[in-house]
């Protein structure tokens, strides 16, 4: 039994420690990666000790291959030189649809040949405003080549470069002549040189040979590819597409503007302590002279404690891509005559969150940094490049490393001080004998006190001396040693902490709340009723401050966005959830909302897809997405569990701001 109790205590201690540790589950995985980067060859050699003969054979084979290839290149040039160099006429003859062959490049980029099926094209002057392309051509052997691909504007380059993703067709050549038809039937012609631009993606970029890019295929420039002057020509702005994108973003912005949380304003005096109460339970204790300049200060606050407010105001809970669990967010600003002011550096405001559960105990303060671009879409015009604007991500949280604590305010009570604290106590065969000092301002007579101590405190005999109104010194003086023992006089009324009064069963006649804890010589230090050691903050309503006694609070030193958060610690494996919206995801505002904890994240957008990375597997979430289709605002709400899957079955339906707010509110726990 004893052992079990001890084990239980040890186990609890270990659990508490483990909860506070960072997630090291990926340490082994990282080590494997690091090992491979650092010394793959050495490790291989160590593991396979006897490879010398094999290495010799490999070396001979490689050398033989090299000599054979060299022979092929230098003794039979006719097979190797680009068709544009050797047989321009022939190439140009079939030119309208011909893709010239350059085997040298083909060999040199064999990896591209094997895997590539994408082209990154920089067109010349032809503007491409449709997505589907059909590319037809003939290679040198006369074989028909046909590519059907989908083009899109590259989000990274910001230019009107097209990336063609070609289904299952291999692109093996360096020179390209191809003719395309856009969906509206318009003929488009491209000429250029393909170049591998990425080691990873096997994408080809067409670089154009200067002014001659407008050539018909028959005018294909001569000479080696390397002689051609590489030039990238950006397309003139595609006004139609951009206008649509801007319109969508503006419509979304207008939609969310209607849902913006209303602010609450308070005019306070900067010369005295103030407590502000928000509609949703926020309490702010603002000490005197907290702000710079101005006597009358207007405080404006916005409270975000529910999913209804967090989702509709797009407040994600991420700190540098690490998920946070929120206990509520707040925006505070202070103005004097319409001009924003800062706090005094030495002062601080105390934020009391409405949640009184123990969940707040692990929370810390985070300050928000706003992504201005995502908020300020009012000035967008048709020429604006909206591709870089991540509309979903509005705020990033930075740890302020201050924990939320209870008991900032202390409740003290006025009692008749009848504590059982004699200055001398002696045990005799008849019972306990106690000696007390009676205060000169006692509210109780010596006889009554004696009766009280004999009956209620079970003394067999009490000795009561009259005090002098202060502390008393007892013990021996002189002869090398001095003993000073201090004792409190009893019988007078006094303020003391409510816990101390309860311990001594003393009845409270008055209650007051102070912002400073009772500190002193020892736990039993009591404020003297006649000479208060510390001035109480009597300016506030006692009832209001009593409400704050059990609230969690934190000190804030900067205004703006603040958040009560903790990092989401989850030992489950991490997965990547992908949401496929089937059209440009950048025009949508999509969030992942966690159901068990208050946490919301925005993913990274790539094409039509949104990636939510490193999320705990199996967690129940709701995907909320808002977009604009045909000028109407639509929304989708999809429940799922996190896994490495692609979610593409989002059902969008028309919505209004109030409808969307209701949907968001349905995620709040009752």
């Amino acid at each position: 039994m004893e052992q079990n109790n001890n084990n239980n205590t040890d186990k609890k201690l270990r659990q508490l420690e483990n909860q506070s540790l960072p997630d090291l589950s990926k340490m082994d995985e990282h080590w494997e990666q690091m090992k491979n980067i650092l010394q793959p060859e050495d490790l291989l050699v160590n593991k396979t000790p006897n490879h010398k003969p094999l290495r010799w054979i490999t070396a001979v084979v490689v050398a033989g291959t090299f000599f054979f290839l060299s022979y092929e290149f230098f003794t039979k040039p006719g097979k190797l030189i680009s068709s544009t160099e050797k047989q321009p006429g022939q190439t140009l003859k079939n030119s309208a649809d011909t893709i010239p062959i350059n085997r040298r490049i083909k060999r040199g980029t064999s990896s591209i040949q094997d895997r590539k099926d994408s082209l990154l094209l920089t067109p010349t002057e032809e503007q491409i405003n449709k997505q589907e392309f059909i590319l037809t051509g003939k290679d040198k052997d006369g074989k028909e080549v046909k590519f059907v691909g989908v083009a899109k504007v590259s989000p990274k380059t910001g230019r009107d470069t097209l990336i063609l993703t070609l289904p299952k067709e291999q692109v093996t050549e360096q020179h390209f002549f191809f003719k395309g038809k856009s969906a509206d039937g318009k003929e488009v012609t491209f000429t250029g040189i393909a170049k591998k631009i990425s080691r990873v993606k096997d994408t080809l970029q067409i670089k154009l040979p200067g002014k001659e890019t407008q050539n018909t295929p028959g005018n294909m420039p001569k000479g080696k590819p390397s002689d051609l002057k590489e030039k990238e020509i950006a397309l003139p702005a595609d006004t139609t597409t951009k206008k649509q994108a801007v319109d969508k973003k503006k419509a979304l912005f207008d939609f969310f503007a209607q849902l913006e949380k209303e602010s609450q304003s308070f005019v306070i005096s900067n010369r005295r302590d103030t407590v502000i109460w928000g509609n949703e339970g926020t309490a702010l204790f603002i000490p005197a002279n907290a702000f710079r300049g101005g006597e009358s200060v207007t405080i404006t606050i916005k409270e975000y404690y529910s999913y209804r407010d967090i989702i509709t105001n797009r407040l994600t809970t991420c700190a540098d891509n690490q998920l946070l669990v929120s206990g509520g967010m707040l925006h505070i600003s202070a103005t004097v005559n319409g001009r924003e002011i800062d706090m005094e550096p030495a002062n601080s405001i105390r934020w009391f969150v409405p949640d009184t559960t123990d969940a707040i105990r692990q929370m810390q303060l985070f300050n928000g940094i706003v992504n201005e671009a995502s908020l300020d879409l009012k000035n967008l015009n048709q020429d604006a490049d909206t591709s870089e604007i991540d509309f979903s991500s509005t705020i990033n949280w930075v740890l302020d490393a201050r924990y939320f604590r209870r008991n900032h305010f202390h409740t003290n009570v006025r009692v008749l001080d009848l504590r059982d604290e004699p200055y001398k106590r002696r045990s005799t065969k008849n019972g306990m004998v106690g000696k007390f000092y009676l205060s000169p301002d006692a509210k109780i007579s010596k006889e009554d006190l004696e009766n009280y101590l004999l009956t209620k405190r079970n003394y067999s005999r009490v000795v009561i001396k009259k005090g002098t109104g202060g502390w008393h010194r007892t013990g021996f003086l002189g002869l090398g040693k001095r003993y000073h023992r201090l004792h409190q006089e009893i019988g007078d009324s006094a303020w003391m902490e409510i816990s101390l009064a309860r311990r001594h069963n003393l009845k409270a006649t008055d209650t007051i709340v102070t912002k400073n804890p009772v500190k002193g010589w020892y736990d039993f230090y009591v404020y003297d009723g006649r000479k208060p050691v510390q001035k109480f903050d009597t300016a506030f309503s006692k009832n209001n401050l009593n409400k704050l006694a059990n609230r969690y609070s934190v000190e804030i030193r900067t205004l703006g966005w603040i958040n009560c958060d903790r990092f989401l610690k989850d030992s489950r494996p991490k997965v990547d959830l992908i949401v496929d919206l089937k059209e440009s995801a950048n025009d949508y505002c999509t969030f992942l909302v966690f159901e068990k904890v208050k946490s919301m994240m925005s993913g990274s957008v790539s094409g039509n897809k949104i990636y939510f990375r490193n999320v705990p597997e199996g967690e129940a979430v709701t995907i909320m997405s808002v977009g604009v289709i045909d000028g109407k605002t639509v929304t989708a709400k999809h429940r799922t569990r996190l896994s490495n899957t692609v979610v593409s079955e989002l059902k969008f339906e028309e919505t209004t701001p109030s409808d969307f707010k209701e949907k968001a509110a349905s995620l709040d726990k009752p």
Partner: protein
Amino acid sequence: MIRVCQRYAGDLDGAGIIYNNAMFRVFRNIKNYQHHGKLEAWVRTIVINCCLDHVKAKGKIKEAPVTAATEEISIDDYVFEKISAKEIQLIIKKLPKATAIVFNLFVYEGCTHNQIADALGISEGTSKWHVNEGRRLLKTKLEHLEKA
């Protein structure tokens, strides 16, 4: 790992020295890592060994008075919901030094009394006494939370 070092060092500087030595030892011996078990556990073992070296370098732990068998010391579960790991560590740090070291080794590192006795050059009885004393003092310090 720096938190493990902090448990055994008096201050952050001491923890830094231990951590530095431990990491030096880790990188010097990484080629000997056998890929059995987790890397974290391997590194942690080295860190704890460095901590013990540091403790030994500071001086020998005295034998404790022989006392009766361990008494029952239980702390209410509710207390652990009201206090954070960091606060517990602060309390443990304020315990007598030898008690804190033995208590940490027993509770957090999972060492047996036999192992602790070997590592610190004390008897098993002394190790048991320190762990029990640690529990008792911790309970005393957490009493106010039990009452609240």
